[in-house]
Every structure is written in structure tokens, then in C-alpha cells.
């Protein structure tokens, strides 16, 4: 490969912790809104919005869909500073405090999740994200940089909620 997007600084950062965030307690209606959005235009399963019904299930109460994101909008750090863009093509390296690669576009390449205990109303979730790897290959739009991050989510009882490996593709 004639050029590489992976700098020595980026290579040295593999394995480093990128971010550690905690959620505020999950609200019942945060779960309801999430379920409405992912099932739209159909009504979501009652497990995700009807606490009385959910109490009769094996869970004994409402739980969140496995993909529910308790960190959306706000974490216990407070609102993001104006101008901070977590979807920018340099957000990985910004969190590592290193220089980003010279790329213009970013895409979500894929995800792998292993699920543990369910998230419930009142849970406070902590996510620790590490840089798993950088790889690159030639694509139809030039050199494509694949970045894999691994996030481990636990609840307030230190139970494993899920492990998520996310692949971003930048070019």
C-alpha cells in the first residue's frame, strides 16, 4: 500500500482507554421513546412501555431494548460543550488526545454485541471504551481506515450489561 492513514502515534494508542462515561438513572419514558422509535410506525411490545404488563413477565418489570443507549444526549459529565461533534471524523483520536488521520468521511461499518443482564428503569450504566485496533485496505473510494473500539457496559451492581465492538470506516 503506497500510503497509510495510520500514524505511529495512532499505532501506539491501540489498547488505550478512550472514554469512561456513566449515565444518569434510566427513565421509564426514555425506554418508551426508544421503543417507539425503533418500531415506528408499529406499536412496540408492551414489555417496553407497559409497566403493569411487564411485571407479569419473567423480568418482573420493564426492561430496555438491548440496543437502548442510556448515554444519548447527556451523561453525568453534563451537556457536551458547544461545537463538540462526536460524529466527526476525528472523534476517536480527539478522545485519545492524538492527531487524527487525514480523512474526510466516516461511516459505521458494523457492530458486534454480546448481551448480559437487561437494562431497567433506575439503572445507572457505566461504559468503558478502549481502542481495539486500526487496520486499512484499499476501497473504491481510496484507502479506507477501519477503527474498532470495544465498550464494556456495567450497571450500578457491577453486572455486565454488554460488550460492544464497533467498527468505523473512514476515508
Amino acid at each position, binding site marked *: 500500500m503506497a500510503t497509510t492513514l495510520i500514524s505511529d502515534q495512532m499505532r501506539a494508542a491501540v489498547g488505550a482507554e478512550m472514554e469512561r462515561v456513566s449515565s444518569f438513572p434510566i427513565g421509564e419514558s426514555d425506554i418508551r421513546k426508544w421503543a417507539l*422509535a425503533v418500531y*415506528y410506525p408499529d406499536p412496540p*411490545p408492551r414489555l417496553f412501555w407497559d409497566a403493569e404488563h411487564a411485571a407479569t*413477565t419473567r423480568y418482573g418489570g420493564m426492561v430496555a431494548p*438491548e440496543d437502548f443507549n442510556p448515554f444519548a444526549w447527556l451523561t453525568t459529565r453534563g451537556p457536551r460543550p458547544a461545537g463538540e461533534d462526536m460524529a466527526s471524523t476525528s472523534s476517536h483520536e480527539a478522545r485519545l488526545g492524538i492527531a487524527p488521520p487525514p480523512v474526510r468521511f466516516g461511516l459505521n*461499518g458494523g457492530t458486534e*454485541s454480546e448481551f448480559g443482564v437487561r437494562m431497567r428503569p433506575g439503572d445507572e450504566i457505566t461504559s468503558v471504551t478502549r481502542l481495539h485496533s486500526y487496520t486499512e485496505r484499499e476501497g473504491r473510494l481510496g484507502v479506507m481506515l477501519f477503527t474498532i473500539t470495544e465498550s464494556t457496559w456495567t450497571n450500578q451492581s457491577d453486572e455486565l450489561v454488554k460488550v460492544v465492538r464497533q467498527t468505523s470506516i473512514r476515508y
Partner: protein
Amino acid sequence: MIQQDTMLGLSVGDEIPTFVRENTGLHHFNRYAAVNDEFVPIHMDDDAGHKAGYPSAFGTGNLSTAYLLNVLRSWIGEEGTVRALACQFRQPNLKDTTVVARGRITSILVEDDETVAELEVWTEDGEGNRLAPGTATVAIVDLARI
């Protein structure tokens, strides 16, 4: 590993019932962006989609993941659990695409009171082109075995 769970009527190779979203567009994409705080131009703005090399704005990969979870949940019911899901976002969910989430059983294992099934899963467009292929593992509670 077994080829068939006669108590649940499952066999390797079986397809599970589909989850279909017709004519997906900004009304689907924006609802997801709103709950996930994921306001990315390529998912909201055709011009941004064009600049990134696509014919329009397109849905988030995360929404495709949600559709795959929906098809699995609908099949296993409230008592079942999704243990794992992996997928790659190979093709974008462009505007006006009808997205079908599908799954096919690739292995079956009976563990105590649960049947654990592995599946090939994917979303496809109205022409059958795969958008987000992947794999999943689910556990189905068999009340008759308890």
C-alpha cells in the same frame, strides 16, 4: 448440537418470520436520531449523502441493528433472550427503501430449559439485496421443559 428441536418445532435451515419497514425515510431515520442524539448530516440531508458518494441520505447503521433485534424479539417472544448480535453495514438503507429483516437458523442446542439457536441474520432491500448481514444467538425458553 442437534438438527431439530421437535418440542419447539425448530429445524436448522428454518427461516423466522420477517420484520418489514416499508418506504423507509426521514420519518424513520429522524425518530431514531432523536432518541439516540445521532444527528449526522448523511442521515438527514441528501446533499450530505451525495457528497459522501451516495444517491441520497440514508438510515443509520444503528437503526438496521434495531430492525435485526426487532425480528429476533418478535420470534423468540418476551420470555426469550438475545445473547449476541453482529452485523456489518455493507449497503446503505437509502430513502424510500423497503427494508426486510430476516433470519435463518444455523444451529440448535438444547440447554436445560432453554433452546439456544444460532442464526444467520440480515436486512435486505425490496429487491433482495443484502444491506446488513450478520449473525445472532438467541435463547428460547421452552416452558414444557421447566
